[in-house]
């Protein structure tokens, strides 16, 4: 397209031409003064020309709308402008059409900005994929890849499908899905998502989801549904504007006929345009939900934004949410001088090898981490349900478990053993005593590692205006209390069954709180469903969570939760401000017309300004706030298991380098 044609087709060309004609008209009347009788009144001719340039598209649009039996804003402006020309108010006609045209162009440009988050998501979807078929590479449309086929993704290219890395290694920028800009390392067996970008290496990916069945498509779908879902406040605004415009038209007709005042009637038509009223809420919702999507926070709709802004209690599941959900060996307390740490680990690893005991994996991992050689399986293992295991290792009888197991093994529980077990339990860890041939030699302890960002999340929620953070857990009270102290939650309810979690949420709601529940969505499903806002963590890759949760956090990152709450609060704030602007504009214009002073041109100017103010206000939501960025940088994982004080027992923790 040539530059000239682009200029003509640009949305700014019509307002520019009309504006130039208006200026020319002013120049003529200023230089020449009133036209002498009999000569062509050039100033008026130029004004009418300006009105025609700016007004023609409006009239065309009005006629189209009428053909579709819609009385739109275009019709009001057309009637007002034509009426103004007929009664000789050329300047008014030109001003109204010019302001409307330039306002409209600005609105279109800025409204598209508020939708930019969604447009970017759609643009992220890759069009083509390189498929390996019979050993050769074929470039095909991304949607035509079949499930199970292998696609090749080269450095710098977008992943075209959801899939699993079959071969290769690399780094992937997953910002389009999770909002996290740091690239993630990917190796064989790792999940990758369509629309993410390989920033290093080459990956061969086996497709598990294509086209409309990718995480990206689910996100886009979800964002669109959310943006279109109407909030309660909007239903009211829609009702209001539904009667406002026809009401004003009738009023204009009646006043025009009764008072024989055409100017008043036309002015009323201009201010009958329901501009800011209708879009005040949708722009805020579109911008807020779009902003969230960019940050990996999916909110189900305007209704949920309004509820999320009112959250004052957040209920959090412990295991897998505040903690990583995979127990780690934390302590090795040696009680017998003939043993040392490595020997205890080797013995325990050998005894636990191949067993289903909860301690098996943490012990084997710890032994591997400390370079203790794995010495094969025990001759014999026997699980003792609820107590531990008893194994035969090199002819010796090794028991690992709680004190009940050791008593059953006739081991004498002396004071050192009892103290060690007690202290570890008090610190919120799960102690396991180890005995060899009836003599206690050590106590091992494991704990579920607290996520490094858990404390940051709780502090962030408090900052975002949440009054109480409540931990709901099925775990024992001592363990729960230790985690709670570490993380800073306000309240702990431990030992809960899933249905009791639900009852706890209900009780909080009955006390008048708006409750958000955060969980992994598996055993918390009932509580998530009954909470005012159910939050699913780490939803990327699970289409179900994306489609069903009220708020889905794409990344498994707790810090996104305070971000979501404050985004909801800011969006609702913008909604309220916009409604106020719209209502005040309507009231002021009506008063201005009734009491005089508001002409057609002023009416149109105020109207357009109010629309643009509402859009500009919503666009504030799209800007990333510096505070969010700062919060992301501040985070440095603290050591989560502080060693017990040396005065207790000669405790050593795995967080230290083995000496």
């Amino acid at each position, binding site marked *: 397209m040539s530059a000239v044609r682009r200029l003509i087709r640009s949305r700014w060309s019509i307002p520019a031409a009309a504006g130039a004609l208006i200026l020319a008209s002013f120049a003529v009347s200023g230089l020449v003064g009133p036209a002498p009788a009999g000569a062509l009144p050039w100033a008026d001719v130029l004004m009418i020309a300006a009105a025609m340039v700016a007004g023609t598209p409006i009239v065309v649009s009005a006629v189209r*709308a009428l053909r579709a039996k819609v009385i739109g804003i275009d019709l009001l402006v057309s009637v007002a402008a034509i009426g103004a020309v007929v009664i000789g108010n050329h300047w008014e006609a030109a001003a109204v059409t010019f302001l409307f045209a330039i306002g409209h162009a600005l609105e279109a440009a800025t409204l598209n900005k508020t939708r930019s988050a969604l447009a970017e998501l759609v643009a992220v979807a890759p069009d083509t994929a390189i498929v390996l078929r019979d050993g050769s590479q074929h470039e095909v449309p991304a949607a035509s890849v079949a499930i199970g086929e292998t696609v090749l993704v080269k450095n710098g290219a977008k992943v075209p499908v959801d899939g699993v890395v079959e071969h290769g290694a690399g780094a992937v920028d997953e910002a389009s899905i999770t909002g996290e800009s740091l690239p993630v390392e990917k190796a064989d067996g790792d999940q990758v998502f369509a629309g993410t970008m390989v920033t290093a290496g080459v990956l061969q990916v086996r497709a598990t989801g294509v086209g409309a069945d990718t995480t990206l498509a689910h996100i886009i779908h979800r964002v669109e549904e959310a943006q279109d879902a109407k909030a309660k406040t909007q239903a009211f605004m829609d009702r209001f504007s539904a009667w406002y415009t026809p009401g004003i038209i009738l009023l204009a007709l009646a006043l025009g006929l009764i008072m024989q005042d055409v100017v008043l009637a036309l002015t009323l038509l201009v201010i009958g345009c329901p501009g800011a009223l209708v879009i005040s809420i949708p722009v805020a919702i579109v911008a807020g939900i779009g902003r969230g999507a960019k940050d990996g926070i999916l909110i189900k709709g305007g209704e949920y934004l309004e509820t999320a802004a009112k959250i004052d209690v957040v209920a959090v599941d412990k295991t897998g949410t505040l903690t990583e959900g995979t127990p780690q060996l934390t302590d090795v307390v040696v009680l017998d001088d003939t043993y040392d740490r490595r020997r205890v680990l080797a013995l325990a690893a050998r005894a636990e090898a191949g067993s289903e005991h909860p301690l098996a994996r943490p012990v084997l991992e710890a032994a591997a981490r400390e370079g203790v050689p794995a010495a094969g399986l025990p001759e014999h293992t026997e699980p003792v349900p609820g107590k531990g295991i008893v194994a035969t290792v090199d002819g010796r009888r090794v028991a690992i478990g709680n004190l009940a197991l050791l008593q059953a093994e006739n081991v004498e529980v002396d004071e050192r053993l009892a103290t060690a077990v007690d202290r570890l339990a008090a610190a919120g860890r799960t102690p396991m005593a180890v005995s060899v041939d009836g003599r206690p030699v050590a106590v091992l302890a494991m704990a579920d590692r607290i996520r490094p960002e858990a404390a940051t999340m709780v502090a962030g929620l408090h900052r975002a205006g949440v009054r109480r953070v409540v931990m709901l857990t099925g775990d024992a009270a001592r363990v729960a209390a230790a985690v709670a102290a570490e993380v800073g939650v306000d309240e702990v309810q431990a030992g809960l069954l899933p249905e009791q979690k639900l009852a706890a949420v209900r009780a909080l709601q009955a006390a008048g709180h708006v409750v958000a529940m955060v969980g992994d969505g598996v055993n918390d499903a009932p509580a998530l469903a009954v909470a005012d806002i159910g939050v699913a963590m780490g939803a990327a890759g699970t289409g179900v969570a994306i489609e069903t949760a009220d708020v889905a956090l794409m990344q498994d990152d707790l810090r996104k939760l305070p971000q979501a709450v404050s985004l909801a609060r800011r969006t609702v704030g913008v909604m309220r401000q916009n409604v106020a602007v719209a209502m005040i504009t309507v009231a002021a214009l009506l008063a201005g017309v009734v009491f005089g002073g508001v002409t057609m041109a002023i009416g149109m100017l105020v109207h357009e300004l109010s629309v643009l103010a509402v859009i500009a206000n919503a666009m504030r939501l799209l800007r990333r706030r510096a505070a969010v960025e700062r919060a992301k940088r501040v985070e440095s994982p603290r050591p989560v298991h502080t060693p017990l004080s040396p005065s207790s027992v000669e405790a050593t923790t795995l967080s230290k380098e083995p000496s």
Partner: protein
Amino acid sequence: MNTHTTLRAEGFSCPSCVNKIEKQVGRLDGVDDVKVHFASSRIEVDHDPTLIGVDDLVAAVGKAGYTAAPSAF
């Protein structure tokens, strides 16, 4: 045999566009249902592809004064 087509439009600036497009597209032969979403500027059409193709839908939206393009999802 009906298909469901999603078009993405640009430049919805006021909710009256919704009625305009719904009426313009809705009265075409072979269109069973049309839903226009203002906020996300999407147009969803249920139509009979033997009577009316995606290009015709785009043209109809164009006649109402808006540019639209078909979308995969």
